[in-house]
């Protein structure tokens, strides 16, 4: 469904992605793990059109995304819960969610998705008229994910949903991600918390300094010697 082929991205002269190829199939959770600076966020930004790849193609159901302006990629069916959440602090929870559906015109569909978000995140319903900036970290993460869902995406990109959350909350967030997956959402999950990510993903890619080092079914990556040493902290 979503396919990256030999994508090279640069920040000025810095070669950030050195030929990334990955695929996310319909209904899958695919995870992209790696340490700081490996290029995980850059990959997502490249998919979203916020940075342009210098080489390579990104296709969604066969349609080339590399020439589509960033703000139109959302309506093509890719939406992201960005790193650091980036919610709108001075808008209410409801307004934040409505912003997620900014590119959509189908009022009924928006209403339905709002209901769906509130079923997945009952917390957000309790906080509906509260400002985004006054939410707790976990609630903000839920809001960012809910907002991304409001675009009714074909592929949901999640950038480090566990960042800065307590272990219990991380577990809760991952449970929700699995739920979303069970409901049929296709997810590309970028994580530093490799253990959690590999436990819910069907496949995984290991990213190191802009290149994909390893790939395969999540279970196999979990058992891989290198992965266990480097990313899972086992000896």
């Amino acid at each position, binding site marked *: 469904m979503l396919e990256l082929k030999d994508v090279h991205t640069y920040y000025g002269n810095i070669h950030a992605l050195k030929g990334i190829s990955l695929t996310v199939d319909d209904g899958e959770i695919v995870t992209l793990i790696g340490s700081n600076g490996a290029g995980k966020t850059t990959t997502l930004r490249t998919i979203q059109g916020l940075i342009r790849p210098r080489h390579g193609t990104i296709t969604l159901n066969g349609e080339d995304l590399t020439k589509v302006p960033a703000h139109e990629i959302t309506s093509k069916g890719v939406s992201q819960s960005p790193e650091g959440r980036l919610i709108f602090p*001075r808008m209410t929870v409801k307004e934040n969610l409505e*912003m997620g559906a900014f590119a959509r015109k189908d009022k009924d569909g928006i209403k339905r998705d709002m209901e769906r978000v509130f079923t997945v995140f009952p917390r957000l319903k*309790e906080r509906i008229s509260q400002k985004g900036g006054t939410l*707790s970290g976990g609630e903000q993460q839920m809001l960012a994910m809910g907002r991304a869902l409001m675009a009714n995406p074909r592929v949901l990109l999640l950038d480090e949903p566990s960042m800065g959350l307590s272990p219990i909350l991380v577990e809760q967030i991952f449970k929700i991600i699995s739920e979303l997956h069970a409901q049929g959402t296709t997810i590309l999950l970028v994580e530093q918390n490799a253990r959690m990510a590999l436990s819910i993903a069907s496949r995984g890619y290991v990213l190191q300094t802009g290149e994909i080092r390893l790939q395969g079914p999540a279970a196999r990556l979990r058992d891989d010697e290198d992965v266990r040493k480097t990313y899972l902290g086992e000896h």
Partner: protein
Amino acid sequence: MLKLRPALTIGLAAAFVTFLFGGWSIVVIGLLAGAMTGLNYGQRSLKRTPREIGQEAIVPGLVAAGMVVLGGVVFSYVVTPAVGKPLAYSLFLKFGKTAVRMDYFFVLMISIVAGVLLGALASWYMASIQGLPEHTRRARLIIVLVVFLLIFPFFEQITNMQWMAAVITVQIFILLALGLNIVVGYAGLLDLGYAAFFAIGAYTAGLLNSPQIDISWNFWLVIWIAAAVGSVAGLALGAPTLRLRGDYLAIVTLGFGEIVPVVFRNLITVTLREPITRICFVGCDPVKEVRNACLYACTGPLDLTAGEKGINPIGRPLIPFTPENLFGANYLPWYFLILVLILFSIFLIRRMHQSRIGRAWMAIREDELAASQMGIDPVKTKLMAFAMGATFSGFAGAFYGSYISAIFPGVFDFSVSVIVLCMVILGGLGNMVGVIIGGILIMGTDRLFLPQMATLLKGFMTATVLPNVSHPALRDFLTFSLDPIQFRLMLFGLVLVIMMIVRPEGLVPSAERRAELHAGDEAAGAPPLEAEVAAH
């Protein structure tokens, strides 16, 4: 137990005005002070019914109006003699052509009675409507405001207060501030060159409705053209610069604001020539040009703006079936015209703010990266903000040109941009009511209070101080250097600095901010998510 401190504060601020003006201003200021007191007490009242809330606010209203009266009395019996005016003099009431002579003492008595009564009444009414449900309250408030805005100019004319010129300037600047509020308040783009669009509007109107290049189109057409040209200028400035953010954008707009008046200053020998064939279209001299296709002004280079001399005279608006000099004779038609323009702008801006584009502005201001992930085109959205902001200053410029009837490049300097920005910040970024109040405070100070203060101070010096001072250097200093008008920019700077420290959200913060504080209270009441989960 009633707390009178807010009433005393409001009264003191208002009394400062009557302390400077005395006379009839007691009536107007007493009314306004009463209304503000009522609003203040009504909003904080713990009572439920409108009746009770209103009754509770009568005494504070009386207190505030009393302070105002006190200011007026001090003006009459302390300030007046101190500035060397006789205690007893006459004022005139003007009813059209007939003038009625009135003893000042008599005027003062009427003003005191009317000021106190109106103050208490206003306080009672404004407080009591606070007890009504939201939509009726709004409707009542608007009706009261409209009635005041309709009656005030006639009262001003009859009592000959000489405030109208200042009031109209205040209105022009309010229109400007409303436009700038779109750019700075809604979209969060710092524009330090806003006066440029004001100038573009004024010069467009000036060119198309004056003997300068001999075009005199109707004002009602020209004002729309000026707005359109303004918005095109907004796009032209925005398109290349909007990739810049924050400080960088501010610097570019600052430059633009400086360039535009210079351009107008220099557009005095304009010829338009096709560059390759050198065929000339506009402003050639057919005798000297061999190959010419002269279309316009074919007697030498065209003088578009008359440089420093300015464009003069600019045509006045004409309304069918009214006397031709309706807009020449007095201030009232101008007052109502700009009032209509302001109301129209408020209506348009409100609609825009509540629409998709308003949402997009808000999102861009909050977080540009996130906004573009939501499917908002940041460039288009920002351009739209620039263009809309420039449109309203185009309106203001066209009105200004026609009202003053002459425009000079020097009028549109940096201080205009700064003052308009001050108005927006003082009142409260992103809130139209706040912006209007900020405008009234700043421009009222600038055009009404400071000049009056200067006159009074000058009188005070000549009448009271100078006769007792013999040292020549000190005499010089007292005569020439103590001019409040010269301190105006310092005063505004001071106000801004104090605002930023004491109340950075502005006098009337936007609903978002207010709700944010409110939501903060709620959040404190509910247990945060982490704690709750951890308890399991």
